[in-house]
């Protein structure tokens, strides 16, 4: 089973994330980056599938500037077999459509994987569009928001826990599957894993290696434009009451004063 996992390097959500003033793109330098938490679940699921299918290969793929290599590294430390990092200055400011184009071409160059796994969304843009765009570009079926993945021969069945129903969805391989944070508990890299990762192959590709023209990607060619960004004014802290036996009454009093009850 050949599996490609798409991962993203994102600014840490614990930091004060912001935008770059000049071009209104996400500021990827002022806050430390890391492997998007939601992608760790995809890496973990790939490793679990590989462990139960002898002869499997897990390739982790990212698109992003130099520091995005850290996302590949972390995935290799977790246990992925090899990495591909597509990096090219022309990619800066790309929208979801251009990102999916680069990913799709990279996946074609890697080979024809049986399964492409992704997280449900990135933790920075949170659009959740890339998996679907990727499936469309690769002409593959797709099952999204999996909280369980079962492989049986050339069929993948996923469980999706929706608001109104729990569904089981079946697709034939090759396919794209996106997973939620409910699917597994991602492993921490072990010392052995960290040492082993140093010897694992990582290829770095530029757009030219993929036959993608710079005119198809980047900020100037994006299909959407960010016009402005405004920091939300910080909330002003209101009254804090210590409960000394009348806290519940005080709470009801506040709710009544605001006409909620």
């Amino acid at each position, binding site marked *: 089973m050949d599996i490609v996992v798409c991962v993203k390097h994102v600014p840490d*959500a614990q930091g004060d*994330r*912001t935008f770059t003033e000049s071009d209104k793109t996400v500021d990827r330098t002022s806050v430390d980056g890391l492997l998007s938490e*939601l992608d760790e679940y995809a890496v973990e699921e790939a490793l679990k599938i590989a462990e139960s299918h002898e002869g499997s290969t897990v390739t982790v793929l990212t698109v992003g500037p130099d520091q995005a290599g850290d996302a590949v590294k972390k995935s290799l430390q977790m246990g992925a077999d090899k990495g591909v990092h597509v990096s090219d200055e022309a990619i800066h400011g790309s929208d979801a*459509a251009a990102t999916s184009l680069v990913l799709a071409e990279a996946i074609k160059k890697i080979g024809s994987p049986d399964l492409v796994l992704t997280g*449900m969304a990135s*933790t*920075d843009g*949170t*659009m*959740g*569009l*890339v*998996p*679907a*765009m990727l499936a*469309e*570009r690769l002409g593959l*079926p797709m*099952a999204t*928001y999996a*909280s369980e993945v079962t492989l049986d021969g050339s069929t993948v069945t996923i469980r999706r*826990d*929706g608001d*109104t*129903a*729990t*569904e*089981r*969805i*079946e*697709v034939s391989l090759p396919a794209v599957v996106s997973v939620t944070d409910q699917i597994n508990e991602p492993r921490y890299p072990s010392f052995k894993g960290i040492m082993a990762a140093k010897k694992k192959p990582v290829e770095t590709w530029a757009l030219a290696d993929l036959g993608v023209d710079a005119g198809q990607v980047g900020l100037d060619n994006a299909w*959407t*434009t*960010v*016009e402005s*960004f*405004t*920091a*939300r004014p910080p*909330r002003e*802290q*209101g*009254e*804090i*009451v*210590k*409960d000394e036996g*009348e*806290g*519940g*009454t005080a*709470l*009801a*009093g*506040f*709710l009544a004063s*605001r006409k*909620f*009850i």
Partner: protein
Amino acid sequence: MAEVLVLLDHTDGKLKKTSAELLTLAKRLGEPSAVFVGSGVDVALPVLAKYGAEKVYVAELPDAADYLVVPTVEVLAATVEQAHPVAVLLTSTPAGKEVAGRLAVKTGAGVLTDAVDVEAGEGGKPRTTHSVFAGSYTVNATGATDTTIVTVKPGSVAPAAVQGAAEQVALDVALSDLARSAKIVSSEPKQSTGRPDLTAAQIVVSGGRGTGGDFGPVEAFADSMKAAVGASRAAVDAGWYPHTLQVGQTGKQVSPQLYVACGISGAIQHRAGMQTSKTIVAVNKDEEAPIFELVDFGIVGDLFQVLPQATEAIAKR
């Protein structure tokens, strides 16, 4: 006037509330046209006319609901080609976003997701408002393409009734092999809690680690105000509450009139799901809990004491 397509979210013709919301937003941009995929259009027509749909494109595909999104994408792509709309509006749900992603690649149209407002911008193109980075920034964006696809969060606008012709236009779309590639083989409906829907509720009461797994006081307090009940990730991960009711970055993003956080510390993961709420109240034993930085009113105290007392006080009113 340019057409604006609205993809209808429905079950056998019974429309979700978001369909009227999208038609209301579409009217701001041009002439609203609804796109109906599936069966039961006769049930939907009166509602569509009431909320201003001038045209209703109908693709009668009785088995569309048995497959994930691709049949809908192919119908929409054909409609975009025919109508040259300035925008395609969909609901921000997992399915809505999946349709949007595939449709964008198929038609070369830009996509803007999770809009909380849509208005007509330059040249009649949609100008959208988004809340990003866990609600810490507001972003305005536009499409750079002739057609822009926008997914809109539920509850972003109050539906406005305005009569439309709702003239039916039959679509005959030949589906590809890929259309029926992701089959829904089983569907078990969830039992309803009888409480309001989390993302649409005016009041949300959530419980976290501080409940210790006992949501009884949280639920009783919520019920006294006819509120929806949510949970923090810690509570969901501990198995105390279903994931579908998780409020936070990887759960639901809510923006009610009133949000009450009970026994929730207020980690960024949680704040991402609730900090755009109009009024925020917290009950927490730990006076250092970061959630108190956000509140309009906070009680430092044990939720097992405070909530039952408040519930009783509300019942007496």
